[in-house]
């Protein structure tokens, strides 16, 4: 058994992209309405119909629900791994490459729950959706049953680890601000982004503090929206209308310190497992990457990803971003050529836990990204998730590299 083994390399491709447009407040939407819109869009984009889908792999909305809603006549394989998107992608790759299914529909949605936004908290139907449990993960019996303002489970721990990062390496909030400004600058060229007005460092530093040292500008934007992907064999993909996006390598990464405040330190996070595995399974290297998608649902996560994928050493991410900051463009251009989160990321396009990052990476590799298309983009590195149970890496390439 070797971490290098990767019989699925380039054998499975993303052939359809679909979306339910992101919005700050979609009146009258449900998780089902969002996901079904994205799924229909993705299947049509792939040039396929319901009878062509024989596998379904989504996040919270059940595979059975989506199958019935879309009238998909026969499904041979299905799964509903928990978020975030790399869980669905790796499961779908395994299903297709093993022959469990030929063509898999993958989806994920964001539906603002009461803890995610104030307007959502005023909606009685959204309040009921959490069944009165403060941390939704307590449903799963993972031991996460401490609640409210005295628990580090979930979002507060990201703020605490952000503070620890600044403390350990001597950075200030300006370091985090560059990640937020980069996302906002790139969002200006993305019609799907919910926030597109420019963000200055002065405005960033004046941002309303939510959990020190993270302000509103450091935290993903709650939205209603969904993404869907159609995944099949590369062989079949070459007969379909869209340029295939090949999944070169994909991995998840956990450590045994799976809950937030128990994480030993940022040197023993799930990201380290991801990066070790991903590069071992790949024939490509970091030097081949043309576009980079580090998740930034909290701004500090992106700094950790930039370090851990190999651009610089641990704790050097802040300095690296400052060194590769293009002042005239107000964004990061690594080595003058590699943009980061070209769609505006979770901080400006809208928070969909990395699904939006994956969608954008596919658009870039299909040369379908409109005004923000990166010339010659052939290899994309997508790293969804944070530090604990959700670190993931997906290395994508176009078919002609």
């Amino acid at each position, binding site marked *: 058994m070797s971490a290098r083994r990767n019989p699925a390399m380039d054998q499975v491709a993303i052939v359809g992209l679909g979306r339910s447009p992101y919005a700050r407040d979609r009146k009258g939407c449900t998780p089902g309405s969002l996901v079904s819109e994205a799924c229909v869009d993705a299947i049509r984009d792939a040039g396929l119909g319901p009878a062509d889908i024989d596998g379904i792999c989504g996040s919270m909305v059940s595979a059975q629900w989506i199958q019935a809603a879309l009238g998909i006549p026969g499904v041979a394989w299905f799964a509903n791994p928990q978020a975030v998107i790399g869980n669905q992608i790796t499961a779908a790759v395994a299903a297709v490459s093993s022959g469990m299914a030929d063509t898999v529909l993958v989806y994920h949605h964001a539906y603002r729950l009461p803890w995610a936004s104030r307007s959502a908290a005023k909606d009685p139907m959204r309040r009921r959706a959490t069944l*009165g*449990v*403060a941390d939704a993960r*307590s449903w799963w*019996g993972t*031991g*996460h*049953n*401490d*609640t*409210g*303002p*005295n*628990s*580090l*489970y979930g979002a*507060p*721990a990201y*703020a*605490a*680890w*952000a*503070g*620890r990062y600044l*403390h*350990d*390496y*001597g950075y200030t909030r300006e370091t985090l601000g560059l990640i937020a400004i980069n996302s906002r600058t790139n969002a200006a060229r993305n019609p799907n982004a919910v926030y597109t007005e420019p963000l200055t460092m002065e405005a960033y530093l004046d941002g*309303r*503090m*939510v*959990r*020190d*040292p*993270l302000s509103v500008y450091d935290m993903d934007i709650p939205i209603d929206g969904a993404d869907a992907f159609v995944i099949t064999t590369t062989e079949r993909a070459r007969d379909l209308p869209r340029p295939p996006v090949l999944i070169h390598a994909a991995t998840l990464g956990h450590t*045994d*310190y799976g*809950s937030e*405040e*128990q994480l*030993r*330190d*940022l*040197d023993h996070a799930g990201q380290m497992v991801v990066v070790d595995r991903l590069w071992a399974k790949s024939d490509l290297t970091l030097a081949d990457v043309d576009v980079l998608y580090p998740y930034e649902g909290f701004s500090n996560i992106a700094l950790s990803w930039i370090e851990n994928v190999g651009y610089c050493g*641990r*704790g050097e991410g802040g300095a690296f971003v400052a060194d590769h900051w293009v002042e005239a463009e107000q964004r990061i251009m690594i080595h003058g050529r590699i943009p980061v989160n070209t769609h505006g990321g979770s901080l400006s396009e809208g928070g969909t836990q990395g699904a939006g990052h994956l969608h954008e990476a596919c658009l870039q590799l299909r040369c379908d990204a409109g005004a923000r298309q990166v010339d010659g983009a052939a290899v994309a590195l997508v790293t969804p998730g944070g530090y604990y149970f959700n670190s993931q890496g997906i290395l994508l390439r176009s078919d002609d590299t």
Partner: protein
Amino acid sequence: MTDEELLDAFPGVRIDADNAAWHRGLLERRLLVNRCDDCGRWHHPPRPLCPACWGRSITHTEVAGDGFVVLVTALRQGPPQPGVDYGDGGHALVAVELDEQPGLRLAGTVVGTPTAEIRVGDRVRALWRDIPGRLPRADFEIVAGAAGTGRVAGGEGASR
């Protein structure tokens, strides 16, 4: 106390056989942390086996509640809760590494010190307060004259 009385004491909390002892301890103002009878290692939150040696003989063992701050943030907003003030620098939320074992941590708040003055490395001890309407839990206070004396090394990610 019966299981039903325990459940009634923690409305809305997912109490089960694996974490009941921890919650019973909170009602008695004791921090009862899982310790393995075979290898002596502690773990938290409570699980049905020892992650270090897979031993299933666990004793819920009282810890002193002494330790140091490894993580700190200030919550500027959140759900209303008795005893919690999100204004004036925010509600302090910390992870405390207990002296019993490296990596053994509890989360909670720090009282008696302005939130902005709490630092990684500060020595703390557990403190019990009666706050009507709040579920029983331990808080922490900074040990006078011992700010910043914890075992945390800065830089190089070297918290060990």
